[in-house]
């Protein structure tokens, strides 16, 4: 097509107009526009994803090409107590942290939805934990959880006299697990709160007025107006939150590195330890791949479980 249009052009403008015409030819333009994004994503996302699944079925180590070993890696993982431990903690971590983030985040969103002075400044400040690099705030938590100089221990022991000895936050399994969950909740609250606040602001006030005229109590207004109206946004935010909490790496790596006694390994940190630090690429890839079923299940559950109303009604206005 560009050739035929070209011949009708004046000779003087041939060179620029040939290029211009080529770039105005829609199919070519579409390909050119999509090329950078699709190219980057296929080379650095789709290809590695496939490669990762392939690696999980080989015995590759760093510096040696592996051979196909079938399900051997996965069979080994099933007998590995550390893997089971990581699965267990990943599920516990995701479950409790998601619940905490959403309960507190929703509460904070409801609080922020009121009118008070300096609201926009407050909203900006509240997002800080989410903006700051996670590893750096995790370091602050590590310092807060210090066995000897923890500021929380100081408060409890020397100021409030509630305890007689320092809290051992990271020294034993369960306290360490809950300390990490607390740090994760702290980091996640702002995102949940601000996203849900956006949802709250889209609910029409006339619904509340109508409910109040009918004599609905504050709880009833929340239960029958706010909550159902928030469902679609809750579903999306929760899907994201679950995916990124389950695959979390930074907090655990920065604060405990999986310790004490491997009790706080998440699947991602275990995969790193085996795959990169230990050099067993195949096994590490198998651990990473073993996250996929959990992720798919969690996504389907939170998305379809919560967004039920929406797809039942077949709404597609966004």
């Amino acid at each position, binding site marked *: 097509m560009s050739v035929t249009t070209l011949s009708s052009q004046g000779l003087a403008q041939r060179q620029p107009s040939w290029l*211009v015409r080529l*770039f*105005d030819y829609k199919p070519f333009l*579409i390909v*050119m*526009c*999509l090329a*950078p*994004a*699709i190219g*980057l*994503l296929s080379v*650095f996302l*789709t290809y*590695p*994803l496939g*490669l*990762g699944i392939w*690696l999980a079925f080989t015995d590759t180590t760093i510096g040696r090409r592996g051979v196909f070993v079938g399900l051997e890696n996965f069979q080994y993982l099933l007998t590995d107590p550390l893997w089971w431990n990581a699965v267990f903690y990943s599920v516990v971590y995701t479950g409790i942290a998601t619940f905490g983030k959403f309960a507190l985040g929703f509460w*904070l969103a409801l609080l922020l939805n*009121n*009118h*008070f002075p300096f609201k926009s400044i*407050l909203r*900006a*400040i*509240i*997002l*800080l934990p989410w*903006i*700051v*690099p996670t*590893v*750096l*705030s995790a*370091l*602050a938590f590590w*310092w*807060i959880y210090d066995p000897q*100089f923890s500021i929380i221990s*100081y408060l409890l022991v020397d100021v409030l006299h509630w305890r007689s000895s320092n809290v051992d936050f990271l020294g034993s399994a369960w306290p360490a697990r809950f300390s990490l969950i607390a740090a994760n909740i*702290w980091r996640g*609250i702002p995102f949940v709160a601000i996203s849900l606040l*956006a949802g709250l602001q889209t609910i029409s006030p006339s619904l509340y007025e109508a409910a109040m005229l009918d004599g609905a109590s504050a709880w009833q207004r929340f239960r029958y107006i706010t909550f159902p109206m928030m469902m679609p*946004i809750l579903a*999306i*935010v929760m899907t994201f939150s679950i995916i990124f909490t389950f*695959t979390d*790496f*930074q907090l655990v*790596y920065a604060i405990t590195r999986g310790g004490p006694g491997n009790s706080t390994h998440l699947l991602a940190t275990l*995969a*790193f330890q085996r795959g*990169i630090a230990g050099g067993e690429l195949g096994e590490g*890839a198998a651990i990473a*791949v073993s*996250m*996929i079923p959990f*992720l798919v299940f969690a996504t389907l559950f939170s998305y379809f479980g919560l967004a039920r109303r929406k797809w039942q009604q077949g709404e597609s206005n*966004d």
Partner: protein
Amino acid sequence: MTDTVAQTAAVADAKAAPDTMAWDSGLRRLMMIYLPLGCFVLILLFPFYWMAITSFKPNAELLNYKQHNPFWISSPTIAHIKHLLFDTSYPRWLWTTMTVAIGSTTLSLIASTLAAYAIERLRFRGSPYVGLGIYLAYLVPPSILFIPLATVIVQFGLFDSPLALILVYPTFLVPFCTWLLIGYFKSIPYELEECALVDGATRLQILRRITLPLAVPGLISAGIFSFTLSWNEFIYALAFIQSGANKTVPVAILTELVTGDVYQWGALMAGSLLGSLPVAVFYSLFVDYYVSSLTGAVKE
């Protein structure tokens, strides 16, 4: 103040008796809104306060709670920051992080603007599916990809080079930015482009002269978001960079400054504070764009 409280209270609680309402709801408001809000702010900000105050405390004060109130500094010092800037490669790490963040942000903005324009404005058969595919890419977490990506990076000979990070970060930036920009392009009236087409403008001229200038707020939002995300990225930077000099700030602090059994908390916290400042400052300049991109993306 009391006026507005009374007014909102009158709207909020029509059933209460008019005379006791103002005082009662004022107290109620304090208990139900300001008190919990205060607690939230206190808890959300405390780690930063603690980080900041630790970075300026001399070591003697840092580890002695009996004689010094830990919540305050009696003799502030900049020794930790000095140590960081002159005895370690901290400036180098900051520079690397900045380069990587700016490089990957630019790359992703270009790629996602073009992609969003093609999907939303050039409309071809299957364009919604391409959009969906790019969106799905956002749901693939880096924790699954870092091991195979490490082998890909080695194959390309980019191991231990910041260029690897610049090329890899768009994998999580492009999906988000594309998604955001599609929303922005949607809000620009198509009639404007039609007018330009009638006047004989080419597609690229339309993109450059009409669509992009109107989408500037979207571009800024996407840019800030990308910048903070790439500044904060950790797992790829940890896996792909080996030599001390090429590390980004979050990785370097954790792997280069945490040494031995006695942690230099002052220096660690000073490093964290300095590493957080650029994003915090950047964020505070564009906070409205940031919030709107966050919430806009959720609503989309």
